[in-house]
């Protein structure tokens, strides 16, 4: 359903599927066909074995540049494609290791070279072949794959399309067989969620690039970013655990910030180290802020990171001055405009 670039030029477009059989190759070749019909010079640089009749039909209309066969392995013929200089080249299946004597060790590097040389690449890949997702996917499917594509390659794509279909409409076709239909459905749902979230992360990266390019700061979207204010106080561990749970439920980001305080007692110093270690274990990005003004430092950091929720511990100690003017929590409530503030119990 995607179209030719008429505005900004696009160089790399990826169709992501959550399992084999969801139809990502068909979606990709269908787009190739439409581009061809609109007069774009489209060639096919790689196809997968076991093609559906629909894809076979589309292939009869497109120019195919046959792969080189090295040690019995098909390798994208980068040289031949560069000589041919098409506008668009289709690579079905990115996760292939090339044999040792090839131009590049991995097929995604072949694709990268073609992109770098000005050819638009449209490629497809399944979730299970993303290096950083491999372990999680394996835990779900019980299947081990050896050939992968790094996530960074996907982050470099100008366009990513997730091919989303409900599990029950593909259950008959998918390769993830084994087990009862219920278990298969459960597995497929879990994979589907991962694919959607991965796409959301890539799209979020695109959004950030836009915002930076336009000098826009906050945009309140669907991505939660949670910041925990760490102090030497003892209950920070509970607060960090709660923040971590929240970040997990929202599939959001977790940050922890500490504003340097002078003259910590050895005991406080130790408590602080423990709390920072707990935050690190929870997967938080840690910031050590050196500033006189606690409230100002937290708010400034939160804005720079597009934080949506700040967690701070309730403070029980109030000086007479705090009673009049409000303590740090009161002042943070006042200063944290545009963000939610959660005051955590002592």
């Amino acid at each position, binding site marked *: *359903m*995607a*179209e*030719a670039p*008429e*505005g900004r030029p696009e160089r790399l*477009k990826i169709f992501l599927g959550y399992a084999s059989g969801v139809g990502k190759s068909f979606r990709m070749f269908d787009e190739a066909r439409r581009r061809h019909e609109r007069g774009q010079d489209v060639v096919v640089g790689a196809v997968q074995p076991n093609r559906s009749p629909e894809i076979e039909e589309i292939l009869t209309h497109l120019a195919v540049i046959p792969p080189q066969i090295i040690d019995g392995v098909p390798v994208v013929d980068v040289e031949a494609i560069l000589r041919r200089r098409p506008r668009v080249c289709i690579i079905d299946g990115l996760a292939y290791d090339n044999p040792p004597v090839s131009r590049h060790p991995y097929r995604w590097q072949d694709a990268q070279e073609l992109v770098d040389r000005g050819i638009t690449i449209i490629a497809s890949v399944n979730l299970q072949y993303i290096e950083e997702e491999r372990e999680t996917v394996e*835990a*779900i499917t*019980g299947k081990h794959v050896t050939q992968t594509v790094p996530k960074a390659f996907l982050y470099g794509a100008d*366009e990513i399309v*997730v091919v*989303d*279909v*409900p599990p029950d409409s593909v259950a008959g076709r998918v390769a993830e067989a084994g*087990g*009862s239909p219920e*278990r298969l459905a*459960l*597995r497929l*749902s*879990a994979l589907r*969620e991962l694919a*959607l*979230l991965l*796409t*959301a992360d890539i*799209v979020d990266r695109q*959004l950030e690039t*836009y*915002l930076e390019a*336009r000098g*826009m700061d906050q*945009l*309140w*979207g*669907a*991505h939660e970013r949670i910041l925990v204010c760490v102090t030497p106080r003892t209950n920070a561990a509970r607060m960090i655990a709660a923040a971590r749970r*929240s970040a997990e*439920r*929202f*599939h959001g980001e977790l940050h922890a910030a500490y504003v340097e305080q002078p003259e910590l007692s050895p005991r406080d110093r130790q408590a602080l180290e423990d709390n920072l270690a707990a935050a690190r274990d929870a997967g938080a990005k840690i910031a050590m802020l050196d500033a006189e003004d606690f409230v100002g430092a937290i708010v400034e950091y939160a804005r720079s990171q597009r934080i949506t929720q700040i967690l701070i511990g*309730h403070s029980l100690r109030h000086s007479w001055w*705090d009673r009049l*003017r*409000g303590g740090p929590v*009161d*002042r943070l*409530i*006042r200063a*944290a*405009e*545009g963000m*939610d*503030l*959660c*005051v*955590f*119990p*002592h």
Partner: protein
Amino acid sequence: MPEPTSNRRGRLKVYLGYAAGVGKTYQMLADAQELARSGADVVIGYFESHGRTDTILRSQGLEIVPRRQIEYRGAIFEEMDVDAILRREPRVCLVDELAHTNVPGSGREKRWEDVLALLEHGIDVFTTVNIQHVESLNDQVWHLTGIRVRETVPDWVIKEAAEVVMVDATPQALINRLLRGAVYAPEKARRALENFFKEPTLVALREMALRETAHEVEVRHVTPAIFNEPDGAAAPAAEAAAASTERILVYLTVDASTPLLIRRARRIADYVEAECFAVAVYREGELARTPPERRAETERLLNFARNLHIETRTLEGADVASTLVEFARLQQITQIFLSRPRYGPWRWFLARDLVHRIVRKASDMQTVIVADRGPAQAG
């Protein structure tokens, strides 16, 4: 109206998109055609072609239940004819644009209420909706687009769906489609490109739709082991991890920011799987002195909360902060949600402010001060 023909409740399938023109209706019709080919009894209850040729082509061959005509203020409007569909008793009914508001005199106010009626009668429904119509995202959408979407669907209606499918297209592809005139007529397309269809806005909406679909798809309370245990092992549901014990209480006041507060609390409650309550609090004797308009306004907000499946209460007490916090303790609330106070330049005396007093009193639970986020300065 005919009685339900069976005890079976219909299944709801939602095609979720992030903007007009991504291909929701097209995808729904394509799936319906495939179902019809396999022999299922499929009818179109309501569909909007927007004059798009490929969409019209996709609808051909499917039976359309004629719309019902309703006269309102001297004009004729057409709405879906629920009674006619119920008499026809199809297996599957296609209903475009779930967030639509019916013209007065149609029986039910909202199309999603019509859809619930079809489901109750055992009819499966395929429907389309865009992310900006999801109630709990209304403020984010306003923030991103500057547009306050009036036609919304409560989140729980979408949660009723047995299936949510994300219909995706890249923003660039969508903009190209708009430029080619494939979505709207030229004048409308031009206006759309200047407002809603700016690329960063579309990217942000797309991310929202992806995350929303992922949330609906999520397999909760299972450990990875469940996916690979031999069949016949304990059912996944029985293996549920400890359910959430969070309970959220919204302190509701008559204020422009209150709907935002309610939506935000509802959204967080859904994600952390918390029970959600909302209360309005009057000082002793205040209720009797409150002007009827203000009471009606409170009632309207309580009703808004109830529509989002939030339990509500009205309390009276000598001191508002104490009454609220005592109620929270009694109800074993873990998080109180409050609107961020508005500060004038003279308000340096923070500690006396009601919100700050509640925060102090509720030192044994979390208090969440929700920001009042206005539209972004979109560039």
